[in-house]
């Protein structure tokens, strides 16, 4: 994932060992099917290292944790039904 901070410099595309990065309409994007988090090539993901604005977050797991949704943070479903108060826990614990 490359975040919207991308300034289109192209450094990541040039350095990617598996050519998983390409320009899209407004920024560069990583093809998640090709990206291997630089395993076997570099100790630190190359795009992350060369990005001047910190927009490259190749490791999907880390990115997902950072961008965790309500459910990822523990919010449970809130159920509305006839004759009952909403049941469930809305605030992430």
């Amino acid at each position: 994932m490359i975040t919207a901070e991308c300034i289109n410099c192209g450094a990541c595309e040039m350095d990617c060992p598996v050519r998983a990065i390409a320009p899209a309409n407004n920024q560069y994007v990583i093809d998640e099917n090709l990206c291997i988090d630089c395993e076997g090539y570099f100790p630190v993901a190359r795009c992350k290292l060369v990005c001047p604005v910190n927009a490259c977050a190749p490791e999907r797991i880390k990115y997902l944790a950072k961008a965790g949704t309500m459910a990822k943070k523990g919010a449970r479903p809130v159920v509305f039904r006839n004759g009952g108060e909403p049941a469930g826990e809305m605030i992430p614990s």
Partner: protein
Amino acid sequence: MGKRIVIVGGGWAGSAAALTARNAGAEEVILLERTDSLLGTGLVGGIMRNNGRFTAAEEMIALGAGHLFEVCDRNSRHVNIEFPGHKHASLYDVSKIEPAVRRCLVEHGIEIWTFSRITEADIDNGSINAVLLEGGTRVEGDVFLDTTGSCGAQSQCTENGNGCVMCVIRCPTFGPRVSLVEMCGIAERNGKKPDGTLGAMSGSCKLSKETIAPEIIEEMERTGLAIIPLPDELKVSDSKQSAKACAQYALKAFAENLILLDTGHVKLMLAYMPLHKLRQLPGMEEVKYVDPYSGTLGNSMRYSNLAPRDDALRVEGDIDNLFCGGEKAGLLVGHTEAIVTGSLGGHNAVRAMAGKEPIILPDSLATGDAITNVREEMETEAGMCKKYTFSGSVYFDRMKERNLYTTDLDAISKRVSSAGLEGIFEQRVI
């Protein structure tokens, strides 16, 4: 025999499907919605009954699926207004509509689950057994509907639009839209802009009433709309117009004027405009966006992940208990349109559960003709680049050609009864 219908996505389509499923006799109907509220993109729309949507709404009422139209009518700020290219429109109040719909659904015995984004499906032998929520909860069912819409995710808005503009869909908070059809391994299609690139941009924004001059607001609240001519340098280019999801508003009048509609907020009939330009207009010097927050730069992208489906709204592919409705079911745009396909999908889901043949609406009805016509159109490359709605553009033209457009209530109820379908969606099939 099973008894539970599970609907994924609580937009207009999912809400409509829940009602017809329940009215057809489904004992348990569970509506799963990833955010904290129902209605999805319907939270920022509001225009009903304009042009052919009037006919479609009245057909649905005659067919017995009128509940949501009644809720909209009751919560309309304006009825029977006219704006360029559009007649007899109603504008529902976007601030009041969600609780009203929610109440209607709960009163009908539907169970609504919010904060419930599905991210996995448990499939066995060509049937879905259950869907799994992102937090791990498993929801079993007998027949499923995908009414997840076609809006976002951020990746779509970034790659095919102008980036995430922070719209009401709120992907970062609740997690982006996920398609159940896709999870079933069924290949989906994407709508295109006329230039062949993917997606289409939503065509309106909401502005804060408090930030616009009182005389404009007064005019708008009295008549339903305000029209502000644009100076030459602010007129919208043709290319920007054609990228819009709402072909019915791609008219000259919308490019040369700022059209504001009173939907509770101020509905600005433009995909986007830089704030500093908007503020050059008299009376708009202090204006502010409320949806999308970054309306200065762009709008949400729609029409990715469209399901292959037949005219009964059954999803075609190797799954035998999956239906769809709304934008998911193809390039039919709008609240009215979503209620039409959602209602039919929900009803047919119960028929499938009861082992009965699904119903298909005949082409003597605008609603039936649209469902078939759009499916056929979408089989062509050119058809995938257009948008269809009862309210304008190519489909409204077809409605008029085929004499399907009318505001004569008697004629509409006659056409429904001569098709033998009066009140069909109120009849129990189980």
